[in-house]
């Protein structure tokens, strides 16, 4: 048992959870204005590709992250235009964007880098590890929080920031108002569409960071479809956490912990397939306890079929 649960397990949980957490935070912005964003998977993938492309082109990590964010913002803008202006069903548009992201990144991988499958360059550097000096003094936290990239720190800061934004700021409460009752929000003079656009672009920013962490933080490479369903998991984490930043942190950590644990369990004689199943099974079980609050009911599954 002691071999199974130690501090390095928690350390890898903290690291693995970052892209999921960031994407979930982004998704919550959309959910809070009444748009169910299924495109998280695609947006993160575009971010991961943008980061590697930026790194290969400029050789500067800061610029690489900016390029990642920029490319995802462009993609989000398309999503925003199609769902808000052209009034397309957001689930349909999201699924299409996921396809577009998968196709486009693979397509560009082959045409720009002329490789199949994955691109990496030994010359290329990933994001550096930042250790906070005061944490290094404390024995347990030192193990838990060492060797993380700036984006990991940023993700946890965003949890606090977003919480304050939603529940303590004027702009945040306006955003919530748009999601809860667009007509009422309109009647008190809020620019509903503008706020929705801003929320989707904010989501793009978060997904760009998530992608950069994925392709430059955890590894330094891009492979086709490297998000491997993380965007969908982020969606699950978002719904499980009921678009509440702290709730989403908890649900992402649950998933990340199970993910890290499943890798650890492979050392024992349990078939790999079952250990890999663990995060998904746990999430399904968790859904029995934390039911989806109904604020998404009218935008998501139930009214969208025509």
């Amino acid at each position, binding site marked *: 048992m002691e071999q199974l649960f130690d501090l390095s397990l928690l350390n890898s949980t903290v690291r693995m959870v970052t892209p999921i957490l960031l994407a979930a935070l982004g998704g919550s912005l959309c959910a809070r204005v009444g748009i169910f964003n299924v495109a998280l998977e695609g947006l993160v993938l575009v971010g991961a590709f943008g980061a590697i492309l930026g790194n290969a082109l400029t050789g500067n990590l800061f610029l690489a992250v900016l390029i990642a964010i920029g490319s995802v913002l462009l993609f989000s803008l398309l999503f925003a235009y199609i769902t808000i202006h052209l009034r397309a069903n957001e689930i349909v548009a999201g699924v299409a964007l996921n396809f577009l992201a998968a*196709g486009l990144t693979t*397509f560009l991988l082959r045409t720009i880098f002329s490789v199949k499958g994955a691109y990496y360059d030994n010359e290329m550097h990933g994001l550096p590890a930042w250790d906070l000096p005061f944490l290094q003094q404390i024995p347990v936290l030192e193990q838990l929080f060492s060797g993380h990239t700036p984006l990991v720190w940023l993700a946890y800061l965003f949890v606090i920031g977003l919480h304050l934004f939603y529940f303590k700021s004027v702009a945040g409460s306006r955003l919530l108002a748009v999601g809860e009752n667009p007509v009422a929000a309109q009647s008190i003079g809020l620019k509903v569409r503008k706020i929705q656009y801003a929320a989707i672009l904010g989501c793009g920013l978060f997904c760009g960071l998530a992608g950069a962490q994925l392709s430059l933080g955890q590894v330094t490479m891009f492979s086709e479809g490297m998000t491997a369903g993380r965007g969908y998991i982020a969606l699950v984490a978002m719904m499980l956490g009921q678009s509440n930043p702290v709730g989403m942190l908890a649900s992402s950590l649950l998933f990340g912990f199970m993910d890290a644990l499943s890798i650890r369990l492979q050392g024992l004689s349990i078939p790999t397939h079952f250990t890999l199943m663990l995060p998904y099974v746990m999430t399904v079980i968790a859904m029995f306890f934390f*039911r989806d609050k109904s604020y998404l009911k009218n*935008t998501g599954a139930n009214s969208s079929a025509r």
Partner: protein
Amino acid sequence: MKQWKQTLSSLIHPLIALLIGFLAGAIAISVTGTPILQAYQEMWTGAFGNLYFLTSTLARSTPIILLGLGISLAFRSGYFNLGAEGQMVLGAVAAALTALYMPGSGIVKLLAAMAAGMIAGGLWSLLAAWMDAKFKVNLLISTLLLNYIASLFAGYLVTEPFKDTTGSAALAQSRMIEQGAWLPKLFAGMSLHAGFVLAVVIAILLTLLLRYTVFGYELKITGQNPLFAAYGGVNRTRVMILCMLTSGALAGLAGTVEVLGSQYRYIDGSLTAPGYAWTGLMATLLANSNPLGTTIAAVFLAALQTGAMGLERNTNVPLEISSVIQAALILFISARFTYSFLKRRKEEKNNGATV
């Protein structure tokens, strides 16, 4: 005359979307430096060029049609079944194992395998529906999660207990099904099999079901106006459970015909890698959940994919061009912008109502 006009105007929207899709494809092709017209010509040849290519396209469309039909049925009643992939995979593995271990003659094995595939897919889908009806576990999320569990479980079955140990042991796959239990091919030497005919027949049956039966009507109004349906005495839970069951069974059948008609064994990842389930979803969306329309859209999307394969063989354009065209097409078909700009002006006032 009026009807003609209506049909025409309903066709204009998809045609514009189609145009935008091919435009997006043209931009992507021009990046690679291949002449655009030549590329599209290669694509056409790769999809429909001769009987061999044509039948390959139809063979590829077979699972997509069945998946699309299943998803469209759930759509019609107002539910998103994002779990078609898992249902298909479980159906495929159940069919493969039944065909391998069922005693009896070839035809018995074939029928038992098809039944097993449909039951496996249907039950897996039913699980999600039951969790939603009984415990309010959101269907959209549970179906998505169940995909991963199903694929991993099927993968486990063919890497551990039922792994093919006769040939080269590197692949995770089951043993080959004996020839008597195969679905017959429609043309000698071509990949098209009887599953395609089955899919088309089911599409016709579904159309009739939706149009002429009480259940079809209940299903439609539940999807269009749940409150009205409840007022009219429709048991919404029953409709959902039945729809999801059938939807899953069709997805399971899609996996089954792939196994019995073209691969003759379950190979891990062979059904998830081509993204059949998502393509099926797209076909449904393209056709607005109309069964016959879904069939045509599925053939069209399959043609895009086989065409892109031909394109990749003969030029330096990667086959992902098909995903680009598909995605652009769906994006703009989902947009309702051709519903006349005047109308939108009016709606500008109730700013924000996205749904």
